């Protein structure tokens, strides 16, 4: 087990730079999720840690070992791929044992490790089957078993659940988390699914277009998003954004002229309001004209526009509400739940 340190990592293909200086410390035993939209460079970053991509600049340390120039096999890592990458012509047992066999570990030890991993993952009865005879979830377990038997310093997961159906995904998500806690091994997990990221990670690294937007715990990201991007990416349904103007008297003027309190600076700002933070209040200053309702049972999503404007807004109210379209509802928001961002840079104010 070991910590993982990324120091100012750059990656370019020819003249195109795709990662622009990624840094981060991942503690021993920590589960870090790298999350971001497709094309943000998250898989590239993981593959650089694994040694499958050449590092253009910067350093990767596993423990206190610099691993930049080490082959993947010598970095003491294990990786689980999106399509599992099991060897189709080998049985489950051979798949799991292959890496150990190459390392020259004794047959007895290999058998012990394979069987131990098979017990943990409950795949003992499949050991002599070929991958094609297994279901998606079972293949996923084998892929993890292959990682476990290596007893690596760091586990790397590259979107391992995206080939599974929704129900199985939730189940495997929990299992991955339990497994990681049980083994206490450092893990880096790449996904584009923010729910997966929030539920799995001790800390999340949000990547956007090759930059780290924010690196923190799921709650930090939810409560204090560092930028517009993070604010829009984390949370479901997504945060509402409104343009507003900070007045000298500390008030904020919304797009429809309504003023609310809590300005942090003068001039144009972008306001962020989470749908679940909008509190219904007949006297509330934020007035939304209802257009569509989504009944989720536990809560109701109210889609509409800010009164007098075309600005789309969503509010989430607990319980069941029956409202006819066209009705105007008033909402309040607590000042500490009102996020304010610089309109130009998108940074949190």
């Amino acid at each position: 087990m070991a910590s993982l340190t990324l120091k100012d990592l750059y990656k370019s293909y020819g003249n195109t730079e795709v990662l622009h200086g990624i840094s981060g410390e991942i503690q021993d035993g920590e589960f870090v999720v790298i999350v971001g939209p497709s094309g943000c460079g998250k898989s590239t970053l993981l593959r650089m840690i694994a040694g499958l991509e050449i590092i253009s600049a910067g350093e990767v340390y596993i423990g206190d070992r610099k691993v930049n120039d080490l082959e993947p096999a010598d970095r003491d890592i294990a990786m689980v791929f999106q399509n599992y990458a099991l060897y189709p012509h080998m049985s489950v047992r051979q798949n799991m044992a292959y890496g150990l066999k190459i390392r020259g570990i004794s047959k007895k030890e290999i058998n012990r490790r394979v069987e131990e991993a098979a017990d943990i993952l409950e795949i003992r009865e499949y050991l002599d089957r070929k991958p094609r005879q297994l279901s998606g979830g079972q293949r996923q377990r084998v892929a993890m078993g292959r990682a476990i038997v290596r007893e690596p310093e760091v586990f790397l997961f590259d979107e391992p659940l995206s080939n599974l159906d929704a129900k199985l995904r939730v189940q495997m998500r929990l299992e991955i988390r339990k497994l990681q806690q049980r083994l206490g091994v450092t893990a880096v997990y790449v996904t584009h699914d923010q729910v997966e990221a929030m539920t799995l990670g001790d800390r999340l690294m949000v990547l956007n277009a090759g930059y780290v937007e924010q690196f923190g715990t799921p709650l930090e990201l939810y409560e204090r998003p560092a930028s517009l991007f993070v604010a829009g990416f984390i949370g479901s349904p997504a945060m509402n954004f409104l343009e507003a103007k900070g007045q000298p008297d500390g008030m904020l003027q919304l797009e429809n002229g309504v003023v609310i309190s809590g300005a942090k600076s003068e001039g144009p700002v972008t306001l962020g309001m989470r749908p679940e933070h909008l509190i219904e209040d007949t006297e509330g200053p934020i007035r939304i004209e209802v257009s569509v309702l989504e009944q989720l049972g536990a809560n109701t999503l109210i889609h509409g526009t800010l009164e007098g404007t075309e600005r789309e807004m969503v509010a989430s109210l607990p319980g069941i509400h029956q409202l006819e379209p066209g009705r105007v509802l008033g909402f309040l928001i607590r000042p500490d739940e009102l996020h304010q961002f610089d309109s130009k840079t998108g940074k949190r104010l």
Partner: protein
Amino acid sequence: MVEHRPILTVLTHLVMLTGILLIAFPIWITFVAASHDAIRMTQVPLPLWPGDQFWHNMKITLLGSGLRGTETTPVWWMMFNSLVMALSIAFGKIAISIISAFAIVYFRFPFRMGFFWLIFITLMLPVEVRILPTFEVVANLGLLNSYAGLSLPLIASATATFMFRQVFLTIPDEMLESARIDGAGPMRFFWDILLPLSRTNIAALFVILFIYGWNQYLWPLLITTDADMTTVVVSLKQMLTAAEATPEWNIIMMTALLAMLPPILVVVFMQKLFVKGLTETDK
């Protein structure tokens, strides 16, 4: 489309039966001719039913000197020559092309595309086109009348390299990456992963190449002058004109039958793998 109309069923069966007859009739005639004595085969009408000389003909064809009055080698020896040539061509081609496809797909080396196109160009240069220079080279190397001379010039070709390249391109990159993380070096990856994964394609290619090698006519005719090195396909033609006498149809047809046998055996025994190798896409 599945349709159940009796007329169509009869029609399709008729078409198939006609096809089978067209293919089978010449083979039947060959078999019949191989089972009569030489004199019966010169009389009209030609027999349509087998005679009683089949085993006798087979014995004198396989073991004897073949045609009377000539000094040809026994047919079993010519078949052995053919077999050596066909097997060397098949194995040689598979070995060379799988290795070159491996290099082209999995390694980044200078002039990689240059080499790729060099191999590609050989597609346009089959033996028939380059026969004079190739003969010159083989002669200068002293390979006339040798198994090496028979097979080497036919081994170098691009088709198989392309097939393996396509096969390798369908194997997901993760397979290679996974093997790298498992600590497999390039050669280990080749032996442990790539070869087993191309098993059915190798089998399919073997069938095609074996038949290609077995049926070679022009090249063996050119570079074998020794009767000891003649292949059975070449000898068939020579038998027709040998000894300036009436062709001994019973012996010639028996030789033809024997020459047909190995390709048939290869196809029959490798049929399952052959079909798999050409149709299976799931890796």
